[in-house]
């Protein structure tokens, strides 16, 4: 193959010849032939498209992007694990700096103090928001964070409590990820169906708690949007000698409602996306993970700690790595290596920009919008809010016509109306999960209510 120029490869034909001379081969092919036995060589070009210019690849990307609808083209009332909030413009500019973007995991602390200090600050902010004592440098997402939390609870019980109970109103995808991890049968998972009020049934839970249970995992606000009674849960779970694991899918909730830590949680995990990351078709997001100091040595993931250098100046390093795979190999607390460092940093930037008041404002505004919308929808003939409990910014609606059809129809009218529950539970055809945040205007909400009413009346009449 003729050696050609490519825009990301500096070597010229002359330089390649020079290097080959130093290495002692006539050509790169000759060098490769020395390394790879001939029958194993591919011997043909890869069947992939030909190279294009930067302008052409931008155009190709733009063409695919144009085939997607999004919150810029339709009014969006979707949540269910991914939440839209306004992202301050400065964040994209800060996080795009090459010094953050193109650095590796900070194994050499003397040349990585920026990332390390940023993550140390992130750990502190996660602790503050969750009301906890120690947080790690992040894991992949909320779902894998929950799976890791259950593994951790199992380790804390030193294998003497093989079962974990997971509340039925935990996000179904999180439950599924936990089940996938449970495939190894290291932890037996038991689901606890929600009670008639959409929340965990405390009496049923009490009956199923025994000395075999290492933890109870509960989401609050739960998948149906409702606030669980965490203090009561903590009391029950602790009385049985188990740990309470709380998962949060939009951490803004922790600025408005009492923090899981203050309610007695032992491990708090969450999806950090809502704190300054775009919804981006589901990723990259960031898993938040926090616990009590006394449990830190059983915690998974990277940790940044404060220390000092040889001159006594303060500095930061990755620490407690004797828990980790690169040191402990098969005895590690987790196999996690690469995490979501830049996303973690991005959430820290968001929390720094908003501050305690800003985060609370976003939470209060989102809640007020959802409350307004829920009352308007509940007033529509045939629509009903089946649960009376308090919610944050998301609520379940019982619809007079199948919710999936309603959603599809409203897309044509410029609205993503919500997530039909049939997406996860085929038998729950007449339920719609609706989310409103500070980004949904009164005009958008009034239009959604109008369209729901018109469409349901039309469909109902036709049926």
């Amino acid at each position, binding site marked *: 193959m003729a050696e050609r120029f490519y825009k990301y490869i500096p070597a010229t034909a002359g330089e390649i010849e020079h290097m080959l001379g130093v290495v002692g081969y006539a050509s790169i092919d000759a060098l490769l032939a020395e390394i790879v036995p001939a029958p194993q060589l591919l011997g043909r070009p890869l069947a992939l498209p030909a190279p294009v210019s930067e302008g052409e690849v931008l155009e190709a990307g733009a063409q695919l992007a144009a085939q997607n609808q999004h919150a810029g083209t339709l009014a969006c009332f979707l949540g269910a694990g991914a939440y839209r909030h306004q992202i301050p413009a400065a964040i994209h500019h800060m996080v795009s700096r090459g010094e953050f973007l193109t650095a590796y995991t900070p194994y050499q602390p003397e040349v990585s103090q920026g990332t390390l200090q940023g993550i140390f600050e992130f750990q502190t902010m996660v602790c503050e928001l969750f009301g906890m004592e120690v947080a790690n440098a992040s894991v992949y997402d909320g779902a894998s964070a929950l799976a890791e939390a259950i593994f951790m609870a199992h380790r804390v019980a030193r294998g003497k409590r093989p079962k974990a109970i997971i509340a039925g109103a935990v996000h179904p995808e999180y439950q599924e990820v936990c089940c996938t991890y449970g495939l190894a049968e290291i932890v037996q998972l038991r689901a606890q169906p929600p009670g008639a009020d959409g929340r965990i049934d405390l009496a049923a839970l009490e009956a199923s708690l025994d000395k075999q249970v290492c933890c109870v995992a509960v989401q609050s606000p739960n998948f149906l949007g409702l606030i669980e009674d965490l203090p009561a849960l903590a009391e029950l779970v602790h009385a049985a000698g188990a740990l309470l694991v709380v998962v949060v899918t939009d951490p803004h909730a922790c600025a408005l409602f009492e923090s899981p830590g203050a309610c007695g949680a032992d491990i708090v995990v969450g999806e950090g996306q809502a704190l300054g990351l775009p919804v981006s078709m589901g990723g990259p997001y960031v898993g938040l993970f926090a616990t009590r100091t006394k449990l830190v040595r059983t915690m998974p993931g990277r940790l940044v700690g404060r220390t000092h250098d040889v001159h006594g100046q303060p*500095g930061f390093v990755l620490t407690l790595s004797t828990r980790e795979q690169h040191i402990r190999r098969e005895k590690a607390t987790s196999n996690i*290596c690469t995490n979501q460092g830049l996303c973690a940093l991005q959430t820290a930037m968001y929390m720094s920009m908003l501050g305690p008041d800003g985060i609370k404002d976003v939470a209060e505004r989102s809640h007020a919008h959802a409350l307004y919308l829920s009352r308007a929808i509940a007033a529509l003939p045939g629509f009903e809010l089946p649960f009376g409990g308090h919610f944050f910014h998301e609520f379940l609606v019982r619809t007079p016509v199948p919710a999936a059809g309603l959603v599809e129809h409203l897309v044509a009218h410029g609205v993503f109306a919500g997530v039909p529950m049939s997406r996860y539970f085929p038998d729950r055809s007449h339920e719609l999960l609706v989310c409103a945040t500070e980004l949904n205007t009164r005009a958008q909400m009034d239009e959604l209510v109008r369209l729901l009413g018109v469409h349901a009346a039309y469909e109902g009449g036709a049926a």
Partner: protein
Amino acid sequence: MTRAFPPSGTTGLAHEEPIIFERSVPGRRGWLQPSSDIPAADDLDGALLRQQAPRLPELTEPDVVRHYHRLSQWNYSIDAGFYPLGSCTMKYNPRVNEDVAAMTGFAQVHPQQPGATFQGALQLMVELEDALAEIVGLDAVTLQPAAGAHGEYTGLACIRAAQVACGDARTKILVPESAHGTNPATAVICGYQTVTLPAGPDGLLHPEVVAAAMDDQVAGLMITHPNTIGLYERHLPEICEIVHRGGGFVYGDGANLNALMGVARPGDVGIDVMHINLHKTFSTPHGGGGPGAGPVAVRAELEPFLPRPIIRRGELLELDWDRPLSIGKVRSFFGNFGVLVRAWTYIREIGGPGLEQATRLAVLNANYIRARLGESFAVAFDTPCMHEVVLTDRNQREHGVATMDIAKRLIDKGFHPPTVYFPLVVPHAIMVEPTESESLQELDSFVAAMHEIAAEAAENPALLTGAPHAPVRGRLDEVAAAKQPRLRYDFP
């Protein structure tokens, strides 16, 4: 109320920067809400509400920008210079990738939208799946895993599910001793015991070693190809046959795929399932430790076990959740989509010939370094390497200088250190992976720096053992950090 910051002196342009909480001034705000004509909520019971506000910093936008700008100046990065971390593939991260990922039609797509409204995103994912399958020589790909180790878990879980489905549950995974630590950690999390296999004196895994370890309880072999010493595992066809004959699968760790593109394909030599680190081979940025993406490619017989949903091809691309044999989901939604967009852009821009050229230059650059540094440093193996070369401190130890000192001294010379003390099979390893992104001039500067360090080791070892001297912080005390962990800011 005013309060002075801790010392904000400068050394040239390197500013001292306090912890962000020390910059906080009560009453400052960096963000205002838009106005709203929706009334404040009246439904919440006071007992539910948070009593003590989180102690997040209170700052304006310029405060925050300055803070993170200054922190960024304390980081080394591939944008700043040569970053030869072995097995990490620190190649240049093209900026057009960032621009495509940030397009509104990708970044603002909500994962809960009806499938018909994100056909462009699904089309991109299908094209990336097909490209990766062609590059590694396997049949089907899942893009869901968020990182390499996450891909390892996914791949092993597929092997486990396939064997369980045939009533042939097994208990052991074979792992060569040169493996990355994630391999044995993953095997254990997946419920297996690991059996460590030694490499031969040539650094390669040999068929007879595998044959001796193979029995009806071995679910499979996990092997990094090329291996973590940068050597091509030339006996793989025979090794894979032994594993297959014994009813096992071969898992390929794709961390080093940058050495193989367009040259040889893991699937063609018998590997059944492998993960691919998009943040290594396919130029997506490491971000100081993620986000990455670890797609997994499998042979057709393992396809039914991949995480759900899969994308069903047709005129309308559809998400197929009805996958009774699937291991289930390993992550919420569809994986690190923004990272997938970047990798798609890279592959689409440089095409097949560009990928092949990347591999060819990655191999040539590593062998050039190997040839040039052999004068001063011990080279661990006597055969041409692929994309990375392993050196040791053997020639320097007589001066009381160890691998870590060489690494830290490189910082003073303006380079990021190579990977050190890994792989464990080579004592005091110094693993250099230059990648195709580096110019001859950059490689020569690095070689010159390493020769200088070798000379300093003999003449003035204290220069090395006290290194680094140049950065804003000297060598950090990791022992103290672990002894008394301080993992969060202590508020006054």
